[in-house]
């Protein structure tokens, strides 16, 4: 019962912070818009025939959309430190782990709902803008996995960000650390040409591994299977959240 009230408290905070509206709006706009842009380009180069991974392309907005998720989740905790609100929060609810759990639940709930809107928009964009003759249907299991898995990806990115936010406690610092963590591997992958390194990066770094959930084609050639990839990301998220919980519990606020 206590947790429910804490979650409501956190939802109220999220709801009344101006940045939440902006970031959720950015998540939906960028998430759907970028995917639609990619599909619109696909139609131009897909003459006469090609074999694109349509669900994955329609979900390309995740590259920008996840930045908004990172922002929502990080701000949910660091803003409290920036404004010293955290002391009020902890005075009102001294059980710190409950506070952090409530924050996690509230943020994940908001992100999952927004993520569902994004993938629904991406799916519709895929049906309208995708090349003719390439049916996109949610009755196809890999397609369903790609779209629903992306919602889970957003949720895990939110948890990872919340954990790092709790550790770093400084908005800009936490954002920088998370962005470095997410983007290092894909940037290195663009530069190195060793196949061994590519496999290794795709398997063990949070963004490429997590995004393998979006693959629906050539699965046998993937360095890591979709669910296993999402599992790698959840290990990162769990580790960050665990360390965040430990320091949140024992450090002075």
């Amino acid at each position, binding site marked *: 019962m206590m947790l429910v009230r804490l979650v409501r408290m956190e939802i109220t905070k999220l709801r009344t912070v101006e940045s939440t509206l902006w970031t959720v709006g950015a998540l939906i706009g960028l998430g759907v818009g970028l995917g639609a842009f990619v599909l619109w380009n696909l139609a131009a*180069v*897909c003459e006469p025939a*090609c074999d694109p991974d349509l669900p994955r392309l329609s979900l390309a907005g995740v590259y920008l959309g996840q930045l908004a998720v990172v922002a929502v989740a990080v701000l949910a905790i660091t803003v409290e430190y920036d404004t010293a609100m955290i002391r009020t929060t902890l005075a009102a609810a001294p059980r710190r782990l409950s506070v952090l759990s409530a924050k996690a639940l509230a943020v994940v709930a908001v992100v999952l709902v927004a993520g569902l809107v994004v993938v629904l928009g991406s799916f519709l964009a895929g049906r309208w803008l995708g090349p003719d003759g390439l049916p996109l249907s949610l009755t196809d299991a890999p397609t369903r996995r790609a779209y629903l898995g992306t919602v889970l990806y957003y949720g895990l990115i939110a948890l990872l960000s919340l954990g790092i936010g709790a550790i770093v406690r400084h908005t800009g610092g936490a954002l920088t650390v998370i962005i470095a963590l997410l983007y290092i591997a894909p*940037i*290195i992958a663009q*530069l*190195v040409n*060793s196949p061994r390194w590519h496999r290794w990066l795709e398997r063990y770094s949070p963004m490429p591994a997590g995004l393998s959930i979006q693959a629906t084609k050539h699965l046998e050639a993937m360095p890591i299977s979709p669910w296993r990839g999402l599992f790698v990301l959840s290990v990162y998220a769990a580790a960050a959240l665990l360390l965040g919980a430990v320091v949140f519990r024992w450090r002075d606020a």
Partner: protein
Amino acid sequence: MSYQSTVPAGRDGFAQVLRAEWTKFRSLRSTAICVVLMIGLTLLLTLLTAAGSGTDANDGPHYTDHFEFVHQPMAGDGVLVARVSAQANSQGWAKAGIIIKDGTTAGSPYAAAMLTPAHGVRMEGNFSTGIPGGDGGAPRWLKLTRTGQTVTAAQSANGANWTPIGTMTVRLGNVAQVGLFVASPANTVVTKVAGGSQSRDVPTNGSATFDSVSVQPAGAAEWRQDLVDPDATAGTTVQLRDGITVQGSGDMSGYGLPSFHGGGNDDIVINSLAGVQIGLLAVIALGVFFASSEFKTGLVRTTFAASPRRGRVFVAKAIVLAGTVFVAGLVASVASFLLAQPRLHDNGYVPPAYPYLSLTDAPVARAVIGTALFLAVLAVLSLGVGTILRRSARSIMLMVGIVLAPQLIGEAIPNIDVGKWIARLTPVAGLAIQQTRARFDTAIAPWPGFAVVCAYAVLAMVAAVWLVRKRDA
């Protein structure tokens, strides 16, 4: 009776503002963290990139020798003259002209005077040496003079006034083959495939028309036409007449010649500075924090009370920031380059495919110093964005959205041209300053790319100064 303070009036020149900003900057905790992080990330990622890159470019042949050759033997010294009356623009590096070669075997030494559709008149020889002979295409007269092992090339617009192009030493036997040649290299076509891009060569067919061919001392009346190639078949006899058209594809080229496409195409200067692509994240944070910390703590009101000319304060901030980042960036880029070289050598990046590089080579110096300049300009852009938005979170997100994310989005977009446009129009175009090899995926030349990021920084600073003057602090 008026009161006059006994404290001498303080000076409030630009130097004082600059000093104030420097004091603030160095006493921010984030400054030291960001600078250390920038250098550390850059070095670490450069070393990782160097360790994960390899090449087998030196395993392949070190030259290309494939062209159409209309020739006759010439014993000892002599002069060959011909006019190229027309050349088809089949490829920018298509070659048509006259050549003296030690036989028709592929790989034998040669010297040639040639026209190219896009690169003017040239003398080339021995698969390694090229001498530009100025602009100009067909019709044009070309002349090769052999004296022992020395060949001299000259060109003329009218066949009367000759301009020398150059001289080179060629290992020729007593009897060499002299005559006309045509070559046209393949085009590299890039297609996007799952997980990256793929390049393949599409042959082009060159064509040129010759007249006024003369050999001194006069040789045999009979000319032969052969395809020079490692596995060519026997050629045919041809009747040489004015207006003869020769068609051919291929290239005579090797390491050291700009038209050479064999071997490796990696830009190892970029690979030696690759860590900057993540190190720039710390620079963005540095620039944003320097602006947002003023607003977050309300320090900006004190700052403006002490120095009411607000625009000047932010110009001083930009100077302090850019100077610091440039110095730190130079440390990072020089160290990255020097640390990466041995690793790259171990991984096969050695001559002839990849000549050894030194910091004093002009393109390398431009890339290394340019990297530090890019970081300094990026820091100013971040300062401008941080000043406009006043909050670190949204500023960092916006900067990441326009600097880091576009590189990944470009990769995801199936249309390679759209990817190139993204690379041209976002601030990361400034990293083109690191390019030392033209590649199929090159989006923008080094200095224009740098101008793009400078334009972003100037726009952001102008908007920032305008806003801080207009807005309540």
